[in-house]
């Protein structure tokens, strides 16, 4: 356990992957894994989502009950697994965001020139 954060390298700040996935699903509705990765990359312009951390993270979110998964048709008529946000996922998203903002502000306070 805990290996996924290490393999994320520096592209996505450790611990924020859940929040990014949850937010993407909240904004665009059910998506497949590839779509989630694409969305995060496009929106952020610089963040690279590794498959090696995306799918294990999705599994853990399934276990936690934040998302559910079901098979559906993709845009190009292929079978793809769609992840959908649940109620507890929504709750988790706001928790993650407020946590993240707290940390961000704290960090900013430290590194801002006084």
């Amino acid at each position, binding site marked *: 356990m805990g290996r996924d954060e290490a393999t994320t390298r520096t592209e996505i700040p450790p611990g924020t992957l859940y929040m990014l996935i949850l937010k993407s699903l909240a904004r665009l509705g059910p998506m497949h894994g590839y779509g989630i990765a694409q969305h995060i990359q496009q929106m952020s312009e610089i963040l690279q989502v590794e498959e090696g951390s995306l799918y294990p993270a999705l599994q853990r979110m399934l*276990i936690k009950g934040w998302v559910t998964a079901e098979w559906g048709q993709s845009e190009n008529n292929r079978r793809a*697994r769609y992840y959908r946000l649940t109620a507890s996922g929504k709750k988790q998203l706001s928790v993650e965001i407020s946590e993240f903002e707290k940390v961000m502000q704290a960090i900013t306070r430290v590194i801002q020139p006084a």
Partner: protein
Amino acid sequence: MQWFSEVWRRLLFLFRRRQFDRDLEEEMRFHMEMKAREAGPVAAQRKFGNAALLQEDSREAWGWTGLEAWADDLKYALRALRKNPGFTSVAVLTMALGIGAGTAVFSVVNGVLLRPLPFPQPDRLTMVWETREQRGEDRTMVSYQNFRDWKEQSRSFERMAAFVGAGVRMNVGDEPVMIPGASVSRDFFPALGVQPMLGRTFVPEEERKSAAPVTVLSYSFWQKLGGDRSLVGKKVQFDREVFTVLGIMPRGFAFPAGSEFWLSLPPDESHNRGDCSFRVVARLQDGVTAARAQSEMQTIATRLRQAYPKENNGAGANVVPLMEQIVGEARSALSVFMGAVACVLLIACVNVANLLVVRAAARRREFALRLTLGAGRWRVARYLLTESVLLALAGAAVGVAAARGLVRVFVALDPIHLPRIQEVAVDGRVLLYTMAAAMVTGILFGLAPALRISRPGLVNWLKQGPGASGSGEPGRNRGRSVLAAVQIALAVMLLIGAGLLMRSFVLRVSVPLGFRPEGVLGIELPWSIRQRVDELLERLRALPGVQAAGAATAFPQDSAGSYCGGCLEIEGQPKREGKQYDTGYMVATPEFFRAAGMSLREGRFFTAADGRDAPQVVVINEALARRDFPEQDPIGRHIRWGGEQWSTVIGVAGNVKGFGIAGDPMPAV
């Protein structure tokens, strides 16, 4: 709630593993294709990285990887053991021996000592005895009057009941058989808390002496009588009296031990405080300890002693928890057995550990290879432990099968006369014990090779090859010497223990019997032959090699003689008070004493002249002479039994172990 649904999802995953793998694979494929469309297949492949690793990581998220690896270990261990049947069977049989013996003895311990008595809240039940200071006796029977005073004055008990053993003769077919039972006062069944399976038990009106005779039967007795439900309400004949069957007790209920029927005990109105022939069972009030009841009873007993100084001279009370009463001395005997069996189990363990060490030495190459290929040391050790626990469990399975047989034989033979022996069986708790023993021993004897294998330096050994081993490893030999030493020490301990047990057993059986069993043949004859017994004996005597032939209603050391407390009367003495002992009694022909080799202390034995029409004569034994005629000559005195004719004492015989007191010439019954 949160974690519950999480656990639920994890469990669900376990059952859908195949599905999960397929899903994940398809998802990966989809991802790759999408990527390939964008960046070209080669780049996609490179960027995607190790798909197998990714899948494994995704799987690990569900938290079952450890278990799955262990299942692999198990599979591999099974295969390895199957490939080496010689080793496996020796190890399994050794463990079966150790665990089987342990299981058998533990079954006995469980049935006798650990299982609660078959009554509701059995820890509340106690026996209440009288004590007699001057004789140093702490568990003697009680007179009905004392019992009634106890019952009325004590506050510690919810209910208190008196009972007395009773035996009836009943004709089963043509043969009269003796059936053991008990007469019980009205609180008996309520105190024990047992309901009848059919019908009912006694109501207070039935306690009256004048009430119609009624009885409650045991389940096994009911079965012997045909097991018909309609027996309730019908009549059965015991001796010369006819009893109405009120109810049938549930299966397994036999209190006091061996009872097949219960009669209603009428209150003793005789005001005779000296007839001490009752036992008392009582149920403690909620929240009252046996110790508190004891101190209350002692107070009452002291009061009674002052009120009736003659009869209750030196009398106290003794509250004994029923379990302790029943189990008694068996506890220490069984502890010794448990110790012996633990020794056997340990020896078996050390043996198998030795085997495993040798085997592990032969498999070093294999393990060195696994270590080199990146298996963790813990992983290899765990594999070895899996193997040894597997061996132990297989041994346990064989052992339990053997133990079942052993227990059955043990219960049938009952060699050391244990209480509650009928309740002994291999049950769930015993199996639990066996499982635990197998797990612990498996880990115990697997530990030595596991530790050795996982020691660093093994990999070097692989590099050097098998030829380079040998002298360089003193540690290994030391370990094996220790094992051997432990084994020998345990074996010696066991041997000494067994020797001591044998010795005490020999001492116990070599107590003087009071008769010479050598060359004596005992034959049990049906009661119906009694009219022709003289003729039979005559013909026996005519046989070459027969020195003497006699008959009696009981045999020395046979407890089936008639016992009666307070039946014996001695002329010229008041009906004995404070009599503690039952007096045993049997009827014998003149030559019986000579045939059995019993010794004469005083006076004479019967002769042919003491037959049917002659004056009644009786031979008593030393114990009775000492008890009832202290410092007097009993010869020529008159005694009688149960209010029958007076008989003259003509002789005193040596004591016979295990049997009571008096003998009568033949025609007394």
